């Protein structure tokens, strides 16, 4: 079993397989974009998917945002008061949320809540031959099923991340100002002085848009590419969550190094 030649061969075939899938995924992405025009003209379908991936994720996103804000408030105060700058709490909470935690945590939650649902839905449609049936009715399943789900996710994600950040800042305010007693005025004014809309808020939005596109693409691809069995679908769901999480964190590093390098 531990024959080095075999091991090497397995490694090689894994890599070839991976590159194969990457190429297929790229071609699939192209097909999604090509079919976007026609599908977006039928916006009720996309609206439906915004409902499923956006509205149904509202509760988890807002509650998580609130808790993350509460924790940030507590930890931030604990650290900042050592340096006698507790009034900077607002700045710390707002910047951490807007730049990193809002887009990243919201995207991770989105991947496990909406992304897995999208994969499951498309995978089951494939397993029960619904996609083939649609294709036989001369309706392209990519345009009818995949594209609305992709754009639904892309549109919902920045809205969810924005809500997450807003709820988090509210949570930080609850802990910092209401519970601990940091001065309300300096909490907001320090925050306003160092948070810039064009830089911090906008870059956070761009991040969440990119994450949304990545998660939505991974989710629809894994569903569409899943093996048409119950087992295959459950494996595809796992892959969606794992691949999305990795993609989000890797993209976050790339985007951050472009956006926030060397500037305050």
């Amino acid at each position, binding site marked *: 079993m531990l024959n080095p030649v075999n091991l090497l061969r397995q490694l090689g075939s894994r890599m070839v397989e991976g590159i194969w899938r990457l190429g297929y995924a790229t071609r699939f992405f192209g097909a999604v974009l090509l079919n976007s025009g026609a599908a977006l003209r039928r916006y009720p379908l996309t609206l439906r998917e915004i409902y499923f991936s956006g509205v149904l994720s509202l509760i988890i996103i807002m509650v998580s945002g609130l808790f993350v804000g509460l924790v940030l408030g507590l930890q931030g105060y604990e650290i900042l008061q050592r340096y006698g700058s507790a009034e900077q709490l607002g700045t710390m909470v707002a910047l951490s949320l807007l730049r990193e935690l809002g887009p990243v945590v919201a995207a991770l939650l989105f991947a496990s809540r909406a992304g897995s649902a999208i994969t499951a*839905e498309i995978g*089951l*449609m494939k397993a*029960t*031959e*619904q996609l*083939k*049936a*649609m*294709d*036989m*009715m*001369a*309706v*392209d399943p990519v345009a*009818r099923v995949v594209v609305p789900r992709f754009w639904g996710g892309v549109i919902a994600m920045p809205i969810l991340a924005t809500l997450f950040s807003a709820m988090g800042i509210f949570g930080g305010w609850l802990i910092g100002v209401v519970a601990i007693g940091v001065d309300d005025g300096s909490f907001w004014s320090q925050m306003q002085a160092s948070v810039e809309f064009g830089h911090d808020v906008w870059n956070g939005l761009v991040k969440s848009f990119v994450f949304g596109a990545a998660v939505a693409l991974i989710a629809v691809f894994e569903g569409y590419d899943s093996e048409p069995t119950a087992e295959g679908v459950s494996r595809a769901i796992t892959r969606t969550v794992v691949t999305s999480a990795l993609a989000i964190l890797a993209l976050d590093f790339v985007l951050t190094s472009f956006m926030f390098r060397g500037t305050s």
Partner: protein
Amino acid sequence: MLDDALVHVENLRFDYGGKPVLQGINMRIPRGKVVAIMGGSGCGKTTLLRCIGGQLRPTGGKIVVDGQTVSTMNQSGIYAMRRRMGMLFQFGALFTDMSVFENVAFPLREHTDLPESLIRDLVLMKLQAVGLRGARDLMPNSLSGGMARRVALARAVALDPSLIMYDEPFTGLDPISLGVIGQLIRRLNDALGATSIMVTHDVQESLLIVDYIFFISEGKVVAEGTPDEIRHSSDPFVHQFVHAEADGPVPFHIKATPIMDDLFGGRHA
């Protein structure tokens, strides 16, 4: 005679992963008839149906449907052709996120600009034809297997196709539902003036309703004929199939070394 046949299949070959599945199929399917394609599991009959519908591209040979060559068409040509085809999948393949009504309305909404009132009338007529007008508001997961298949049938004929294909329409049905589906296939075909191709291994039900039967084994047509000819066929394969005998040209045992060698081979050594 080319004009009285809707579907021509000439020397069709199909390989899957280097393994030949279909090896030179020839058949003519006349207009207005219900034709069954039979054979054991894995003999390539579903593959044949997929090739006729343009979902699989054959490795060699030619398929002509209504004067057009399917095997050389591009995607938009195939989609144009499929608007005149209906297909019933093995387990119905109803859209699980839509009601019965919306399922039947789906092809109409996708391919026509008919006003809502007209779509409603058409859908109710199709559902009436399969006896399920009262089930229009149900969701597919609350339907029995037979009912789901009837809804799928109504959906397949929603656009009044000239060619209807059935992939194993009888699988997993109780005898009553089975009879109902069989009768519906025959009645709808005659009422619409369509042509039907049915892939199945249910011999008894098929013999009652079809006009012509092709037997396929190992990727080739091994026998064909009308139900009467088939019933009285002396061909050993057909005889085995029709009378459901365990052993015959299709052997009971998979090829293996003689059992004595297997059982006692070890001791001889």
